């Protein structure tokens, strides 16, 4: 079964499909509890965004939005354009066409409200820096050299949330891969972000570290907008409210919105032990969550 965009509102689906869809929406993911969040202000909006590297189209007519305090997942296979989309969101690249609205500001101006956890946690293994110093980078300002009392409090709070307070004075290079990832999460949290963006957060992580990471994210859910980027197209964390899939095309990739449903058959240690399946067979219009009367 494949439901095309717009069909839900136009009555083009049969009663059986509609019942199935209703069941999916009501039982799947974490839909009902998050109705309020979905109707809240928009944290991120991509509006008909195109992007090309020189003349090679990478993203074409990308439109999607994420409401404040939603937990979103962006899935897609390697090379599908996820990283490019992330760079556009972070203001590291500029779109060729279209616009990106971030907290009602243009992308770039609202960047200080983003906490970013990059995929790569390796860096230079000989770089002399302690965990506390790395986390304090989350309080970095463009030209100021001073860190005040509020910065110190935010750093301590972030280390507590990420469960790395006991590692504060350890050299970053002496940590395991999972510990480094949590340090980078703390660095992102130190800015007290409104939007937390995590690129492949579970990459090269053991199951214990993964569980601790998703426990932390679970605590943040509801108070922070979270966007996780992952190459796992089959499953996402059960915390996920909305899943976006980067779908390929000759003239560049675009974004399709999918629903999720509980996945009892997912690997038991995936995403901290609780995963949802992405229903790639059901496309949902991007405006679905904003239209009054739609079941959620």
């Amino acid at each position, binding site marked *: 079964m494949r439901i095309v965009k717009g069909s839900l509102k136009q009555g083009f689906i049969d009663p059986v499909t509609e019942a199935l869809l209703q069941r999916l929406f009501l039982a799947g993911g974490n839909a009902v509890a998050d109705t309020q969040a979905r109707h809240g202000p928009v944290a991120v909006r991509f509006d008909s965004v195109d992007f090309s590297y020189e003349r090679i189209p990478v993203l074409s007519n990308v439109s999607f939005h994420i409401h404040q305090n939603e937990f979103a997942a962006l899935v897609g296979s390697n090379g599908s354009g996820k990283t490019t989309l992330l760079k556009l969101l972070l203001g590291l690249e500029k779109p060729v066409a279209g616009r990106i609205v971030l907290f009602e500001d243009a992308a770039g101006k609202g960047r200080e409200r983003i906490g970013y956890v990059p995929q790569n946690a390796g860096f230079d293994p000989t770089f002399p820096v302690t965990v506390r110093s790395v986390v304090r980078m989350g309080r970095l*300002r463009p030209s100021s050299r001073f860190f005040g009392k509020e910065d110190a409090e935010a750093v301590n709070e972030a280390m507590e949330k990420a469960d790395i307070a006991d590692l504060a004075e350890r050299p970053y290079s002496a940590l395991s891969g999972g510990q480094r990832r949590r340090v980078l999460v703390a660095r992102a949290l130190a800015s007290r972000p409104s939007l937390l963006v995590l690129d492949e957060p579970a990459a090269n992580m053991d199951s214990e570290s993964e569980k601790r990471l998703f426990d932390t994210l679970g605590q943040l859910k509801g108070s922070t907008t979270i966007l996780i980027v992952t190459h796992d197209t089959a499953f996402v964390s059960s915390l996920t409210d909305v899943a976006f899939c980067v779908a390929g095309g000759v003239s560049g990739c675009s974004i399709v919105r999918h629903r999720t449903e509980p996945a009892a058959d997912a690997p038991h240690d995936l995403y901290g032990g609780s995963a949802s399946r992405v229903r790639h067979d059901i496309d949902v219009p991007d405006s679905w969550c904003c239209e009054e009367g739609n079941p959620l």
Partner: protein
Amino acid sequence: MSFFEAVFDPSFAFLRNALAAGFLSSILFGVLGAVVTVKRIASLAGAISHAVLGGIGMSLFLAATGRVPWLTPMIGAVVFALLAALVIGAVSLRAKQREDTVINAIWAIGMSAGVLFMAKTPGYTDPTSYLFGNILLLSNRDLLLLAVLDILVVFLAWRFYPQINASSFDEEFARVRGVRTGAVFLALLAVTAVSVVLLQTFVGIVMVIAMLTLPSGTAGYVSKSVAGMMVFGTVFSLLFTGTGIALSWTLDVPAGALVVVLAGAVFLFSAAARMLSTRIRKRKSASAAGGGRA
């Protein structure tokens, strides 16, 4: 006459100048060297330092032939160093895939142009005196310039330390935090270029890179931060230059080369000691784990 007698002998002012230059250069080597090392731009600094020879050669040629009589080697060196820094910086920021080729091209063309200009300069000009330098020939003006540059570099490092530190550790994250990492990088290259011009008078073009990396590399083994690396790098540079000058007086060998040999030997010893201690620690923890299982 012993080294210490010579230092206090009024007729050996050049030796005191050499020690003062060693002290002032050590601050540059320590502070700038730490940044060059953690940002891994030693090869960029190497290309700039060698391109300087082209500027020196051109200045000597233009001054000696009467075309631009007021042009000094220092001015030509600064101009070439800044041009090299600008080109390398622009390529590094905009066309990373061509970076190696451009660095090598500037390195080779700068040196070759210098040799060609010197060959056509009337009178005798020895390129090796610029390649290896001579700390014993420093003037009071050179010392003053070094002191001014020290103050500038230390101030910039202090003022923009968080931005330099963060962009060296994770440039992308620093950009997301609003740091203009491209501007930081270009400013760093420009300061490195000007410093290289002055420092090459001390240890010579070839050895500037060694002193920008070896004391900092050694300092990296005992430091917990880039700031610590700057302090320890400065202290190590002071020890190497002081010992090197004293030994060169006693052994009658070139001071610059001896300073670098000392710095290199200590760095290699530190690296070997670190590898050995890491291996022993791993072996101990492995045997402890094995014992625990047994």
